[in-house]
């Protein structure tokens, strides 16, 4: 019997999964792109539309129509996108046939990071030279401030994606500091294009809620509308000025529609808070939900309608009192293996 001393390389490989994610070759990616384009034309033919002008949105719609899926996670549904979006960008092999790396900083380990730092510093020196030239010629330095408030630097993850290699926190902070130093110089406008690669626009976050002006109906009475919801109930309220404090819900007086005191107190709250109990009339329509949910929905709707009658400070008070926020509490979903959303089945010892 022969004992195998030299084992095959397949057995020698300890951990198959330790080599990292699969590397896609260029040829593979190219083939995928060709297949995608062909598939796109086939799909356009199937849907009866023009293959030449078939955009990504049309593809999405067609796939959603042909393969309807009830899955909640959008990313789990059938997908047909361009291979560059599907396959993550990967580093091509960095060395040639003779084993010699292409990039001169390959052996530093973080070649793209260091090359980026070198480039940025080069621009920095450029700007300084330009500045010295201008001061030598006694020309005024241009001072056009970039809009720092509306832009932000790239995040670490975005930088990693750009460089296709891991960036540590320290390195990232060094890079950002260098960029800030560059921007702080007066003549940084020359390198504006380069800097824009690393900055992003921040959309205006604060959306000021527009308070609608009062409308007037035929008799000349000022009124305003508001909408509110709570749990499954949706309500619309119309608040009229110069009233006696009467409130009508779906054509019925509140005494008859809400026999419970608690619901009527909910309705009373916005008016009482502003101290205008007897001054406004209200007509509301409400549907859905139960008795408490309807009361909460009408309360929110009336608070929103009252904003137009009231100063901004009082609107701020109302907001802090919680009169203008939608109540996010909804019925929680029942989980499998449990009797309710939280209650477990009775535990039996044996």
């Amino acid at each position, binding site marked *: 019997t022969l004992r195998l001393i030299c084992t095959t390389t397949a057995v020698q490989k300890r951990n198959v999964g330790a080599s990292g994610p699969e590397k896609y070759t260029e040829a593979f990616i190219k083939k995928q792109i060709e297949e995608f384009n062909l598939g796109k034309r086939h799909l356009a033919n199937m849907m009866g539309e023009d293959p030449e002008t078939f955009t990504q949105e049309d593809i999405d719609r067609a796939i959603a129509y042909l393969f309807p899926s009830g899955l909640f996670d959008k990313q789990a549904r059938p997908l047909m996108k361009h291979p560059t979006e599907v396959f993550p960008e990967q580093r091509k092999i960095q060395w040639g046939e003779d084993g010699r790396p292409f990039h001169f900083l390959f052996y530093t380990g973080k070649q793209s990071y260091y090359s980026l730092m070198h480039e940025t510093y080069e621009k920095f020196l450029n700007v300084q030279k330009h500045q010295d030239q201008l001061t030598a010629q006694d020309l005024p330095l241009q001072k056009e401030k970039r809009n720092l408030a509306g832009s932000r630097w790239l995040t670490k993850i975005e930088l990693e994606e750009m460089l296709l290699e891991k960036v540590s926190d320290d390195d990232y902070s060094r890079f950002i500091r260098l960029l800030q130093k560059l921007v702080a110089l007066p003549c940084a406008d020359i390198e504006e294009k380069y800097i824009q690669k690393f900055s992003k626009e921040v959309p205006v976050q604060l959306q000021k809620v527009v308070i609608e002006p009062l409308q007037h109906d035929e008799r000349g009475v000022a009124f305003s509308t508001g909408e509110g919801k709570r749990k499954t109930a949706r309500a619309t309220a119309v608040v009229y000025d110069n009233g006696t*404090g009467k409130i009508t819900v779906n054509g019925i007086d509140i005494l*008859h529609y809400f026999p419970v*005191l608690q619901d*009527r*107190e909910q309705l*009373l709250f916005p*008016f*009482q808070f502003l101290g205008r*109990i*007897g001054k406004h009339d209200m007509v509301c329509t409400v549907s859905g939900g139960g008795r408490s949910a309807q009361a909460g929905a009408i309360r929110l709707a009336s608070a929103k309608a009252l904003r137009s009658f009231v100063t901004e400070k009082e609107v701020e008070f109302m907001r802090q009192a919680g009169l203008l926020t939608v109540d996010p509490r909804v019925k929680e979903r029942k989980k499998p293996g449990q009797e309710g959303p939280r209650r477990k089945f009775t535990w039996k010892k044996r």
Partner: protein
Amino acid sequence: AKHTDQHEGRLYSIPLQEVKAVFPHGLPHRFQQQIQTFNEARVMVRRPALEILGYLKGSNLAHPAVRYVIYGERGTGKTMTLCHVVHYCSRQGWLVLHIPDAHLWVKNCKELFHSSYNKDRLDQPLQASVWLKNFKTSNERFLEEIKTQRKYIWGKRESTEEGRPLREVVEQGLARVRSASDAVGVLLRELKLQSPRGSFRLLVAVDGVNALWGRTTLSKEDKSPVAPEELTLVHNLRKMLRNDWSGGAIVTTLSQTGSLFKPSSAYTPQELLGKEGFDALDPFVPIPVPNYSPREFESCYGYYLERRWLQHEKAHTEDGKAELQFLSGSNPRQLDRLAGPL
């Protein structure tokens, strides 16, 4: 007490002895509690009551009795209006036939007997005796004056001769509980016959009159439902409510709270009385009772403040008053219930 339109919205008090004498059984439960708490009975003068009083003052006694039906939503003060009218009439010296709640006669009856007088009908000894007792306390002096006109035979041995005072009839009914309902019938017939003569004026005040024409919750021994006509008390009362006598007035109230098998949003005479009742009561004067007007609300609120019924600090402010008005919707019952815990 003489009241005119100027007194609308004010409260007037009734001395306690009179309360016991005139209303042994008429006042709503909550009002009785309030009397006990405050040690005095104060009734608010409101427009519907003033209307009725005006009609009563101006009515001609030779004509057949006019019927007034007080109706309104729940808790607006119909029973209180009736009590006000009753008190006024008793002060004036009328003979008051006050039935606190006709609904009590058509539901929750433990004992039902077959009537001795008429085989088809059913008796209710308990309720009849209770009512006779109360009637005795409220109209003592009249019982002496009025004499019977016929001879009535109660059983094998008891009988009432002609010309005996009505008090004996009442006592007979109380003593022999079995024949109490018949005693009631006798009483009603005598009063009806004698009131046109003019020696006294008769006021028939019935609360919850829609019970007389609705359905009952009672059933006979073989579990078949009982129609209201088969009850002696109801039958006799219906005869009273018919228009064929003169010399007095009939004031009735509709009540949804005690009514059986009717939706809670019904409050008009048509809905609550049903077709039969409406036809029977047909020529009547309807009197709606609304919620408190702002003046009445203020006076009620002022009264509670005066008697220190509202203990909460904020209740004394203007805001508190507006809040109370909003939450109660100016409904007297709601206001009463709201002010209770405060």
